[in-house]
């Protein structure tokens, strides 16, 4: 049983079209001058040359998802009593996520720990997760805003992927990494390419060699805790932040959501939608009290969550994959790398100060 195939670039679109019968195929396509994951249609084309503007997370965690629909019925005699029927709308069908980058694929595992955990299983997420096959394209190099290497990943990392594509001239070597990946590759008419595995590995190693030596953000979760009380630091860090949600919505690892009821006459639905911890309204309570009243509090939570809270709870894994979308798409070019580096430095300085006390 061969698990490696060679995909000619021009064969990809017809293949995806074919797969569309069995799967919901999501692939990066051009939309205006951005690249977004959308359901694949041949006329939309496919854009594999650059990192998509939006992450692939919507395949597993759609921006808007109905949790249940409800309908009401009434008794016949007055006073008419209303009874309410809830109909959960669990997702069905297989999903093929094609053309994710290693960072996005890695992010799926970050979701898994939360949505498919020991105690709690999110039925909507798990249904999609179980039905999804992820075909990842290894990056040919890092963009200026990329920092996967500093958060435990790499441009060719296969974590979270079912199939890894490595770019060669005129096509890609596709290597199945999981049962699902093998199932997908098994039935293809693509050329078997076990012989190209070594060449693919060489390509990946060359890409890895290009990755610069930089300080890692790993293992800082405890150090950062010492900055919790230093609101002045976070004030300064967040001064240019506009409190919009571009960073969180474009982040492959941000998974916070809102739940709202949207009624429509006597029926309606309860939906969950992406939400944004940088917004003041995220934590605003009915009484008017807000535990995170300023953007400094919110920045502390965002960076804290990714680099301290989540790793504390989940085996030191950072909730950041270093895709850099939050940097390149920020209206004020806020650079989370600088912020984290600065925080680590500051924490170290604080620690030293305390040592002298």
């Amino acid at each position: 049983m061969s698990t490696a195939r060679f995909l000619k670039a021009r064969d990809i679109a017809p293949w995806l079209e074919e797969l569309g019968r069995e799967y919901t195929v999501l692939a990066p396509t051009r939309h205006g001058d951005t690249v977004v994951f959308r359901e694949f249609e041949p006329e939309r084309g496919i854009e594999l040359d650059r990192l998509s503007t939006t992450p692939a997370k919507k395949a597993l965690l759609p921006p808007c998802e109905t949790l249940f629909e409800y309908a009401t019925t009434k008794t016949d005699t007055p006073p008419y009593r209303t009874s309410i029927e809830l109909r959960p709308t669990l997702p069905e069908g297989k999903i093929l996520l094609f053309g994710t980058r290693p960072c996005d694929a890695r992010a799926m595992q970050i979701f898994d720990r939360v949505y498919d955990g020991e105690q709690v299983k999110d039925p909507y997420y798990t249904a999609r997760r179980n039905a999804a096959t992820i075909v990842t394209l290894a990056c040919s190099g890092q963009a200026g805003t990329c920092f996967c290497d500093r958060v435990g990943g790499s441009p060719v990392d296969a974590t979270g992927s079912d199939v890894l594509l490595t770019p060669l001239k005129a096509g890609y070597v596709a290597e199945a990494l999981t049962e699902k990946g093998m199932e997908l590759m098994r039935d293809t008419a693509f050329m078997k390419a076990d012989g190209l595995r070594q060449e693919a590995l060489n390509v990946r190693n060359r890409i890895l060699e290009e990755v610069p030596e930089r300080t890692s953000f790993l293992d800082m979760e405890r150090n950062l805790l010492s900055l919790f009380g230093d609101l002045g630091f976070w004030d300064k860090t967040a001064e240019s932040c506009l409190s919009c949600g571009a960073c969180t919505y474009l982040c492959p690892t941000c998974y916070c959501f809102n739940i709202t009821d949207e009624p429509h006459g006597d029926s309606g639905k309860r939906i969950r939608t992406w939400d944004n911890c940088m917004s003041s309204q995220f934590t605003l309570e009915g009484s008017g009290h807000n535990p995170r009243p300023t953007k400094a509090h919110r920045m502390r939570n965002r960076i804290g969550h990714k680099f301290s809270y989540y790793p504390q709870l989940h085996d030191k894994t950072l909730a950041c994959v270093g895709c850099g979308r939050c940097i390149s798409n920020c209206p004020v070019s806020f650079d989370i790398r600088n912020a984290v580096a600065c925080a680590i430095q500051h924490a170290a300085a604080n620690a030293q100060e305390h040592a002298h006390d």
Partner: protein
Amino acid sequence: MNIGVFVCHCGSNIAGTVDTEQVAQAARSFPEVAFATDTMYACSEPGQAGIIDAIREYGLDGVVVASCTPRMHEATFRKTIGRAGLNTYLFEMANIREHVSWIGKDKEANTNKAIDLVQIAVEKLRRNTALFSSEFEINKRVMVIGGGVAGIQAALDCADGGLEVVLVERESTIGGKMAKLDKTFPTVDCSSCILGPRMVDIAQHPNITLHAMAEVESVDGFVGNFDVKVRKKATYVDWEACTGCGQCMEKCPSRKAEDRFNEHVGTTTAINIPFPQAIPKKAVIDPGACIMLTKGKCGACAKLCPTQAIRFEQEDTVVQEQVGAIIAATGYDLFDFTLYGEYGGGRYPDVVTSMQYERMLSASGPTGGHLVRPSDGKEPKDIVFIQCVGSRDHSVNRPYCSGFCCMYTAKQTILTKDHIPDSQSYVFYMDIRSPGKLYDEFTRRAMEEYGAKYIRGRVSTIQPRNGRYVVKGADTLMGSPVEIEADLVVLAVGAEASRGAGALAEKLRISYDGYGFFMEGHPKLKPVETNTAGVYLAGSCQGPKDIPSSVAQGSAAASKVQALFSRDKLASDPQVSSVALQRCVGCAKCASTCPFGAIEMTEFRGMPKASVVETVCQGCGVCAVTCPQGAIQLQHFTDNQILAEVNALCPY
């Protein structure tokens, strides 16, 4: 909320073209509707009892009535549910009569539309909250605008009831149109004999302040607390000093002043007291005719005045009056007959208006009560009266009947015969309209006892011939053309809205119709109220009226004011704006757009916040649209309520 829906048949008014049972059936499925039924007459005693019973039996805490317009019965039903112990604001109406059954023929479409209207009423009601009025003090003074017979009656009734009255009159004397009349129909009693004493009562009443030669400049505030600015025009005479002796008039060298009181039959002196019974009896200088004021020399009156009351330097003054209610009694004006070219367009001296004729009949008038032709001073023998000049005529945008012309023409033919026994009166008429006590009998007398010849038909032209006038018309009863040679022609000009009525209505924030007559609250049930609380109507400003009707309305308006003032405090309409402090960012945009200055900026925990002065807020909702974050909401017309209505109608 447990909502009850009551769909009224209104006899066959609604049920004739709307399937009311189906509407009630559909209402049962709407959210929070716990009871729905159709009912024969919701507003009737048993209909209301049915609502109350249902509230009690099914524990309803909100009610929708689908019936006529809320302008008709909203207050009725609010009281009904109030009697059942509900907050009266947990109520909505769906107008399925005026807006559905009366205007649509297709029963299926009507029924469907009625269901929609009930649904939006339910959606709105679901978001209603119980509201409670707050009370505010009222200023128990009343302003009456216009000192004609209606205004005089209203002022005296109010004053006799113990209220302080401010009477504002545009002319230098009160009395209005009635003071110009010689006699009144159908009793033919002397107009000034019956009006005069009432005018004197105004002058002498301790509770009445009279501002003559004055007009309302602006009205601020709201029911119970109006703040009115009154402009008192310069009279150039110190009225404190003027005794009304009239010596100034005798010596005034300028005799070119307009004689408005005498309907421009001749001119008068520049300093003038319009007529001997004027109230106040004070002289006024016409600045356009006064030689001193136009050329800077003369001053005859000043030299002569025994009390040195002349003040050539006098200017307008503005006085401020605080009142709790306003009665508009601004009367009417006469149609400008010169629009009719066929009647000479004003070029023929012996074609006069009925009011000019009235002045000629009057012993205190410009001719001393002698009927003469303005052109040559000769006594006329053949006199033609033409009816409906500026009434019932679409071509001059006066399609309405002025109501009193038939009667005064009959009176004038009678008086003509009295003045000139060998005269002959001819009356061209369209129809004779004489409903009223002894009215028809009166017109009969004019014809039968006084020999007035009534010809049914329109006059097509009046042409001068040999110093007389040929009046050509058609006798539509005989079906033949008619030609009468007349010495004098009297045009029965119709009534039209008083000049400036529209501008005053805008100041008072009341509506007026296309002709400028003020709109009453309801054509039948609220004849003297307006839709603006605290503003009432009396007399012809609402539409042409004869004297008894005007007097009745004056009294009616006064009694409305008395009723309003019988309470020490008024309850404010709680459907006013309110601010959600949490959402308000203190940008003050609402305060800048509020037409009433009802929004103040205050501080709450160091942050600027808007705050609504509830008794000043009138509930227009301009602020709610201005506020971008929706922090200020008009209660019972909140964004969410209106959005719920929109969403119900457009469910995509």
